């Protein structure tokens, strides 16, 4: 990240960000309130922000609550992540037309709009990097992801508060933004004060920033310290921790741990966690054709390893039990991902904990397995599977 001076923007100056991005041809997407949650959608102006809203999150619980100020970023993360735009839930892979005995693929893929992501948290930035590795950095390159990813303008936000479900500090992904964005800001709000400490992370970002702020608004040492302190406060509010020491071996060697039976009794295999998780990437492909059979389309849609038929091969599903599916998801996210892509698949955003209808907590599951070693005798395995391990 280019070493740039930090600048302080007033609210009025910050309000010019969206028009500045619009004038450069970007569609701006960012947080907004809808259906009792803070989701990502197209933003036209500052009033689309969740101004003065915050969220209350716990395992299996999410509520919006009014703040006593007008902060624009005074909440954590909602049910959606930026994969909504980078790895869309429904994408048409191809259109084909039958012609005689053969068929033609029609080259009519619409290009996605140039987008600016406004309000990307540190954990979310890490999630984008994780998905970049999966979908662009391995043996094959997902051209759809690449098309949606290219040219994205990212305005990142340092968190100044944490939800009880956050554990980014355990995963090394936050709350501080460390590069990979065009602009990074910290919102400072208090009685009679509402400003944004902002710095550029790229030439494109510097160019936009120059338009928003006259050069005399360089941030003072004390303001920078206040911004740092605000982010530190978020870190200190983190309640949950996931010990990642040797987690790969821990999960690989505990395939038969009784904890899996325990979580299987609670897990509904509803797949909420995979839908809200910013790094989950599984998809399926569906074929559609019209009544005449001359026009066919192939659609790619989000899928989940929790689905009953996800692992179906002739004769049945390999992972038919809820136990095997939960174990697959967690082991993949925290362990196999490391072998596959060189890093953890989890960024500690806590969404899976918040949005699980029965409040299953991935940090607690890891702790339970770590604290009671896999049974070495047949008897203790049966005994400890009753009740909580």
């Amino acid at each position, binding site marked *: 990240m280019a070493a740039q001076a930090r600048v302080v923007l007033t609210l009025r100056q910050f309000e010019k960000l969206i028009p500045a991005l619009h004038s450069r041809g970007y569609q701006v997407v960012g947080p907004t309130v809808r259906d009792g949650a803070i989701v990502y959608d197209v933003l036209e102006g500052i009033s689309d922000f969740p101004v003065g809203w915050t969220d209350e999150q716990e395992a299996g619980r999410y509520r919006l609550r009014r703040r006593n100020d007008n902060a624009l970023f005074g909440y954590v993360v909602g049910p959606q992540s930026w994969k909504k735009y980078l790895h869309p839930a429904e994408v048409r*892979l*191809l259109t*084909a037309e*039958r012609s005689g*005995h*053969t*068929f*033609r*693929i029609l080259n009519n893929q619409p290009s996605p709009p140039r987008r600016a992501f406004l309000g990307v948290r540190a954990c979310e930035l890490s999630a984008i990097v994780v998905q970049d590795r*999966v*979908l*662009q950095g*391995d*043996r*094959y*390159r*997902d*051209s759809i992801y690449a098309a949606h990813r290219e040219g994205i303008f990212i305005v990142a936000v340092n968190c100044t508060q944490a939800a009880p479900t956050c554990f980014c500090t355990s995963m090394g992904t936050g709350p501080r933004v460390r590069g990979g964005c065009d602009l990074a800001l910290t919102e400072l709000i208090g009685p009679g004060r509402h400003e944004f400490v902002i710095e550029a992370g790229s030439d494109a970002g510097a160019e936009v920033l120059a338009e928003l702020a006259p050069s005399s608004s360089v941030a003072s040492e004390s303001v920078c310290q206040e911004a740092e302190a605000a982010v530190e406060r978020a870190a200190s509010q983190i309640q949950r921790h996931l010990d990642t020491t040797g987690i790969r071996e821990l999960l690989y060697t505990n*395939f038969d741990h009784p904890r899996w039976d325990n979580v299987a009794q609670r897990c509904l295999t509803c797949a909420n966690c995979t839908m809200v998780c910013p790094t989950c*990437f*599984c*998809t*399926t*492909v569906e*074929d*559609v*054709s019209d009544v005449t*059979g001359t026009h*066919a389309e*192939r659609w790619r849609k989000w*899928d989940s*390893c929790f689905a009953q038929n*996800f*692992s*179906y*091969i*002739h004769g049945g599903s*390999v*992972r*038919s*039990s809820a*136990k*095997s599916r939960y174990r*697959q998801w967690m082991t*993949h996210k925290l*362990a*196999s991902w490391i*072998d*596959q892509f*060189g890093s953890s698949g989890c960024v500690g955003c806590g969404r899976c904990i918040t949005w699980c209808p029965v409040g299953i907590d991935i940090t607690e599951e890891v702790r339970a397995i770590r604290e009671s070693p896999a049974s070495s005798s047949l008897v203790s395995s049966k005994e400890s599977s009753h009740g909580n391990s």
Partner: protein
Amino acid sequence: MIMATTTIDDPMLPQPCPVRQVVRETSDTFTLKLEAPSGAGGNWFQPGQFSMLWVFGVGELPISISGDPAERDRLVYTVRSVGQATQTLVSREVGEAVGVRGPFGTGWPVEQAQGRDVLVIAGGIGLAPLRPVIYEVLHHREKYGRLVILYGARSPRDLLYRKELAAWARQRETQVLVTVDYGGLSWRGNVGVVTTLFKYVRLQPARSMAFACGPEVMMRFVARDLETQGLTRENIYLSMERNMKCAVGFCGHCQYGPHFICKDGPIFSFDRLRPLLGKYDL
């Protein structure tokens, strides 16, 4: 695992390949011979690789390529009709186009097998992805040691490639043994699972390499028996199968432990598979 950095753009678009011949092998299994797309020679298949075959508007299936790698104008697939998609695929008529994507996956390590005895052990339709190995060995006979083909099927009526099996048995230094689970009245051959054929093979484990393909439980027992007889795990290869939607490592369906069957496999050494094979709901 980190793969090579050659990125292939748009492996998601199928190429229309006309059906040139349909051969009925058994009551439910057919071999389709497709005309290979022009320019396919640049990315020709290795024995053991598979294609994704797309039936217009219906669905797509991962099917192992089971033809002769030396015949560069034909892509051959042996398909068992077990459901709607496979039924539609095998009902294609000569001249109709089938969408082909690929080839995908890792192949049988035939080069590593040079100078050694090659054991080909097939169960049911597992003989299809192994047939290209047999062709390869027979085309370059002097580069390999003995060729032993052990093949098990459900019943005599389910045996594939019967004429070829007889022809292979006549090749020098080549042993072909066939067995069925259910013999029926007129069968005069072996009855029993394919592992019961091992005792008829004079194995030289130190100079052997085994390639096995069939139902997973069969491969498990074959690998275990081979190890008991002295083959090392690094010289036993199996072809694994899982649900596949994309074949390029993006849809996540084919994961088996940390491996993506579509790009880390389908061929794996028993050495890599052994910790995973015993876990039935992995």
